């Protein structure tokens, strides 16, 4: 029992009884910010998909299911399944090996598992599982992790990243590595090791570049000169920059973006939906979206720091950072300052797996808050 809980229980008013919204939601601000972004996302998807009602309806179903899943998880005491979370790693590992050995024939890359009713990418799921199970592993004894714990975690993270790299999916592999490394870093992994690691990679970078596949090399090269081949690999970036730039301060108006509506932005409903938002709603629209995102992240960290268990704190903080990093990567990619990697804009881009992972992660964060308020 920590001092905080003691304090809280002593000061707790007697009147808080019965089921209220705040009882189910745990953190009303967080839940409503998430809901705002979700609804905003559905409206933008309608525009970005060329006003396809069927696509919006399908996405609405994912949103509804994900939202309910989030509220459900929020009601469960996270410590009760810390061990299970730790072992989820193995399930993730098995799924990744499975897609490499039995690739789904309908896709070119070995990323998909087809469950008949729907198919999903295990690498998207692992982005959530990995930080949680590493956090669960590192905090299983409520003490500062030992060196051996850190290195076991690092090995586990590297193994998973390597499997995803073999799919082949370099972008996701790096992102998964970062998300798995976050809890390790947050528990105080010595900085000296990280400096050595970066120096080592820097020295090896020419060799690594030559080992990359041609299409990955092309993607990196395109970044430095996207105008070199405006009809080939640079097309996405050039068109998306044109869309964002021509949107200006106020935007061209909802459903009136020429770039978006005339289909000049490839993947406008998924990875490049940010360009549609910028074109139609302008800098103002982007700023409002960023504000909602900022509110979500702020609430996640408040909950994290207020948590009484090391596990809840570490896992929540990792989730907050991963969410922020995803937004940063997607936006940087769409505005053309990093290479195109397949990262959707969280809570907005079309796609069920990514949406569900984020919402379930928020459910976890909410459940951590419940713990502190019990």
């Amino acid at each position, binding site marked *: 029992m920590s001092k905080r809980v003691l304090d809280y229980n002593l000061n707790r008013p007697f009147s808080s009884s019965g089921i209220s919204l705040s009882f189910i939601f745990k953190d009303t601000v967080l839940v409503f910010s998430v809901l705002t972004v979700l609804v905003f996302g559905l409206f933008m998807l309608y525009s970005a998909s060329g006003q396809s009602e069927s696509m919006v309806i399908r996405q609405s179903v994912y949103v509804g299911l994900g939202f309910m899943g989030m509220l459900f998880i929020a009601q469960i005491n996270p410590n009760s399944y810390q061990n299970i979370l730790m072992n989820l790693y193995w399930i993730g590992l098995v799924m990744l090996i499975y897609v490499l050995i039995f690739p789904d024939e309908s896709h070119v890359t070995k990323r998909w598992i087809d469950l008949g009713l729907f198919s999903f990418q295990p690498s998207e799921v692992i982005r959530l599982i990995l930080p949680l199970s590493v956090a669960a592993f590192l905090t299983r004894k409520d003490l500062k992790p030992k060196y051996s714990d850190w290195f076991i975690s690092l090995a586990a993270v590297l193994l998973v990243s390597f499997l995803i790299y073999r799919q082949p999916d370099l972008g996701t592999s790096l992102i998964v590595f970062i998300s798995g490394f*976050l809890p390790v870093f947050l*528990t105080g992994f010595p900085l000296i090791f990280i400096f050595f690691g970066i120096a080592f990679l820097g020295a090896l970078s020419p060799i690594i570049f030559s080992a990359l596949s041609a299409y990955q090399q092309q993607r990196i090269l395109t970044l430095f000169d996207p105008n070199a081949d405006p009809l080939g690999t640079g097309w996405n970036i050039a068109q998306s920059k044109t*869309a964002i730039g021509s949107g*200006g*301060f106020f935007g061209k108006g909802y459903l009136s973006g020429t770039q978006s509506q005339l289909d000049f932005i490839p993947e406008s409903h998924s990875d490049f939906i940010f360009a549609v938002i910028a074109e139609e709603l302008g*800098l103002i629209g982007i700023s409002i979206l960023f504000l909602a995102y900022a509110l979500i992240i702020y609430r996640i960290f408040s909950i*994290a720091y207020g948590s009484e268990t090391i596990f809840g704190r570490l896992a929540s903080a990792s989730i907050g*950072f991963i969410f*922020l990093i995803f937004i940063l990567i997607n936006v940087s990619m769409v505005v053309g*300052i990093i290479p195109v990697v397949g990262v959707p804009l969280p809570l907005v881009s079309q796609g069920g797996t990514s949406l569900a992972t984020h919402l379930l992660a928020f459910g976890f964060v909410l459940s951590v808050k419940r713990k502190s308020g019990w």
Partner: protein
Amino acid sequence: MFKISDLQSQEASLRGLKARSRLILFFLIIISLAGVIQIVKLTVIDQENYVTESEKNRIIRVPVYPARGLIGLAKDNKLIVENIVAQQLTINSKSTTDIASTIVDIQKTIGIPEEVVRTFYKVLSSNPRNRNITLMDDLTEEQVAKYLVNKERWPSSNLEAYLKRYVIDNSLFSHVVGYTGAISSQEREDDEEYRYSINSRLGKSGIEKTFENELRGKVGYRTVEVDVHGKEVRELEKVLPSKAKNIFLSLDQELQELARKGLRGRRGAVVAIDPNNGLVKVLVSSPDFNPNIFNETAKGDLRSLSFDTNAPFFNRAISGNYPPASTLKPFLGLLGLESEIISWSTEIKDEGFFQIQDEGRKYRGWKEEGHGIVDLNKAIIESSDVYFYELASKTTVDQIHSFLKPFGFGQKTGIQLTGEGDGVLPSRNWKLGRTGDSWFVGDTINLGIGQGYITTTPLQLAVAVSVLATRGKAYKPNIVEKVDTTFIEPELLYQIEIKEERNWKKLEESMISVIRSWNGTAHNIYNPEDFLIAGKTGTAQIKSLTEENLTVQEEYENVRKDIMNRDHAIFVGYGPVPNPNLTVVVVVENGESGSAVAAPIAKLIIDRYQKLQESDV
């Protein structure tokens, strides 16, 4: 349960976490700054440039599709598949906010079937970005009139003329020309060069499919300026499509009709090729279908056709696998001579059955009392099973396999049509792989009369028989004689050399006697005034006869009660001898008698072909 050291470590870990978090946050804020600067640069500083850039984007290219190439016959350049003009109604899904009410209104006014509307919505929902989607093809004159009167009410709709595919002779060439169909979503995905639009139709089977590239031609384009709704404002540039190529077939219409009539709608196939160059003159599979139903230029019920147990879509001429039965005997005779197992003077006593070393299972011949003393010549003329059982028992399956392979058995001929079958030329490994059993001597004996595991397609059999006609030359069968004005050269597949050249001629004489000699199995088609034809009948058993205590005749009487169990009638032949110019293979499923049912059709075709040749000269 409550320890001071716990509290301290809790506090320390929280401090540590916060310190590390700040470190990451600092790093991420630096990156975010780069992003924010970029966004401001794009939307504020460079905005003017990008507005111009997006304006430029409004200039788009619209593909222009050439008219589909025609299909004709090389003889007299007679057309058999052409394009006819029709009217279609398209809907621009971008220029209306309320598609549903527009569609309901149009449907009520001009009369559109419910399932057509349903298909439209299916295409619409799977292609949300597509602007012009066909609502209905092939409008009647009445529908066009009703539309034109009311068209002001539906600004998002448009009447467009288009070309549709029409097969002039309906069913006559159905299995050869094939049919076209609407492009599938899979085909659109595979179409990386944007050669098709969502409304395109393309070849789905037959020549329409195998010559899709030639018939389609090269797509051109128009550069046009469009408004924000994608509507064309003006045309800036036009690159015409290159003309599609026309395909001319080697088939002969009169012979084709004759063969089709000869089969009288029974299940079967007729193939005729010129043995000297492989040009296909007749390719009929029966029953057939009207390709215009697929082309949507004729009304008809596809469902009932596809559930028809006679399988009218199945191209029996190139895909049907039949046992060659006795038509294999001349080839095996040649094998016996080549490997010196027999000579022309080798005689056996045919008592109606064969047993290995006079014991074990009785392999019965078709003639109960036997053919008496038989040599190779008589064995071919009277089709003695026992002679060939005995011959087969002295060879091995390996010998048979390697001897028959160059004749084309067991492999695709490579004709330019879809769905060609392989046939089966069995070997030890084939049987092991197929059934898990090793090869038995009994299997070889069955091969002796062309039964058992061996099967061929009628086209394969025609190629093999042509080798006999040309004394060793096998040409690849060729159904397309020219593409536009370019003739396709005959392709020699292989040249078979035998030790005794004169055996070709002697074998041919035996096959002539099959028809000319009074005891020949096809003597019924003999006419002393006509050209000489070399041939061989065959009766392919569907059900093996095994009852030892019944005679063949008695047992077959029971079997034939079920029509589907009756034997297939086969006839192969070529003529005129000397200088044959046509090889004909006729297969009539469950036709029972090669001589009575199949041979007369072949004879008619060969005779008519000679008359046509004369009148051409």
